[in-house]
């Protein structure tokens, strides 16, 4: 950033050196007061359910007969680790995330660069690219399943008119997941694009001017200035879209029900199916706990690889 900002170290120094004890106590009290509403609400509606979910994973709780629940130790976990469906779900979820996160991030940056020019109709295009984001995923998935229909769908008609072979899309175990990926990127990319636009506009102009004076070409400026300046934005986008990708559910639920041949079964889909459809609450809670651990691990790994300039 161009202007000095409130970096943590400086604040710490100011706090320690510039104030007296009573002020410190006052700030403690005010600080806690300010975070209190959020803390209470998160505690009640996020932490407590999570803890409870952890507890349920060691029981055979069934939602229609809650009083019959018994503690059964790690039986759910043992079953789960031996469940080939679960491992398939883990692989499918990873496949989706590994493809969608980079593709969507790159596409979002591309769109943002296109729109980061002072051109007429800019806000029109911005709205157009963002527009799929406002549609509910259920609606999007229903529409696209008809577009993807192999015998009568729009996409195969287009392919045929272009002289290309028809595809099986959602009825093929190799194409179903990529078809869901394409649709997901289409639906979500506008959002990341907008965040990148904000990030791009925050890059100080003098950096580009100075580089131009030094004779750097467009590509060099892109690699040397734009990319590094967007590091924080990119980190944010990657972390958030990774978490979203790992939670893949609605598309699968509407379009494929995990098929064909289990090729689109994801962890959350399986968790939902076991928990709500089959009412195996304990078993699905065990899945939830393993999912937390998985996401936690991935987030920690990402933090290692992406250099952070704060904290």
């Amino acid at each position, binding site marked *: 950033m161009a202007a000095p900002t409130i970096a943590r170290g400086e604040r710490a120094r100011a706090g320690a050196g510039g104030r007296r004890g009573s002020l410190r106590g006052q700030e403690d009290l005010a600080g806690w007061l300010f975070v209190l509403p959020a803390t209470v*609400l998160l505690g009640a509606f*996020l932490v407590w*359910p999570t803890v409870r979910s952890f507890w349920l994973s060691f029981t055979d709780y069934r939602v229609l007969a809650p009083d019959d629940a018994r503690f059964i130790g790690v039986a759910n976990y043992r079953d789960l680790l031996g469940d080939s469906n679960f491992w398939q779900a883990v692989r499918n979820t990873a496949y989706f995330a590994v493809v969608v996160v980079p593709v969507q991030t790159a596409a979002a940056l591309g769109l943002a660069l296109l729109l980061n020019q002072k051109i007429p109709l800019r806000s029109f295009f911005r709205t157009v690219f963002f527009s799929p984001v406002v549609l*509910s995923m259920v609606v999007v998935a229903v529409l696209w399943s008809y577009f993807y229909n192999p015998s009568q769908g729009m996409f195969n008609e287009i392919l045929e008119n272009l002289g290309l072979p028809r595809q099986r899309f959602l009825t093929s175990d190799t194409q179903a997941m990529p078809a869901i990926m394409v649709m997901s990127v289409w639906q979500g990319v506008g959002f990341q694009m907008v965040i990148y636009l904000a990030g791009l506009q925050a890059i100080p102009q003098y950096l580009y001017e100075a580089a131009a004076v030094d004779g750097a070409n467009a590509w060099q400026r892109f690699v040397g200035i734009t990319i590094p300046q967007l590091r924080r934005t990119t980190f944010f986008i990657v972390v958030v879209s990774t*978490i979203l990708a790992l939670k893949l559910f609605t598309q699968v639920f509407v379009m494929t029900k995990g098929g064909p041949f289990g090729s689109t079964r994801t962890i959350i889909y399986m968790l939902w199916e076991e928990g709500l459809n089959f009412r195996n609450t304990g078993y699905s809670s065990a899945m939830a706990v393993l999912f937390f651990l998985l996401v936690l691990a991935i987030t920690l790994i990402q933090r290692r690889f992406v250099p952070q300039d704060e904290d």
Partner: protein
Amino acid sequence: MATQPIETLEAGTWRRERTAGGARHRRVLAQLPTYLILLLLSLLFLFPWLFMFASSLKPSGRVLADVGSALAFWPTPFRPENYQDVFARVPLERYLLNSFFVTTATLVCGVFVNSLAAYAFAIMRFRGSDILFALFVSLLIVPFEAIFLPLFLTVNALGWLNSYQALIVPFVANVLYIFLFRQFFLGLPRDLVESARIDGASYFRIYRTIVMPLSVPIVSTVAILEFLARWNDFFWPLITITDDDKYTAQLGLAFLFGGERTQWGIVMAGTVVISLPLLVVFLLFQRFFVQSVATTGMKN
């Protein structure tokens, strides 16, 4: 995209170039390929919308029959009565009002609660703040689908089932929004707060009179995110609300799907009706949303 001259990106440069007429023509020519790309991309992003609009204006039986041809994008035979039918089939106006109330209430409370917490994390230094913030951030990974049942039991224990509270209160505090607010506040110039402190302003006064007025972009961002999430939520209202006076628009839409007998023309009309408010919200807020973070908070 990277081949575009980057000097033309900023408003100042653009104005400078504009003064010379010849340069302007060259610019327009140089932009032609960009426009072509943008137009093609627009088609890609718009075709499901076009399909939706066209389908909402034709008899239900034609919708799926046309999906494989160019007719999919053309409302023929024309049947605008779908829009009347959708309101006759379900009291969508009532459901839209419910959605609007629930969404707005969550939004208003959410902006306050989350920004206040983020302000404390970003601007203030209090004992335990680091640990608490780390804890908050780690909650980002909890998927809703994994905790909905215990959450449902909690909401039930509070006696909130079948009430608006069930749709509002659990979603007010949001870790992602706290994180976003904090990031934004960390980017604000330090002098603003420091000098106000020296003048004896309380932390809450600084929050209210200095920090929040500067935070229009981030409030807009959070507002759009929250509006999308709440408006489009289907699953949670489904399991917590059985009294159809309190149904949200998404639940109302579900009534239009009837398995094999789904009236697609009417469903599409309903979908258009409940999707448009979101587009309007985006159009209203996007100006602030995309507005440069640099030009609001960072100008000294």
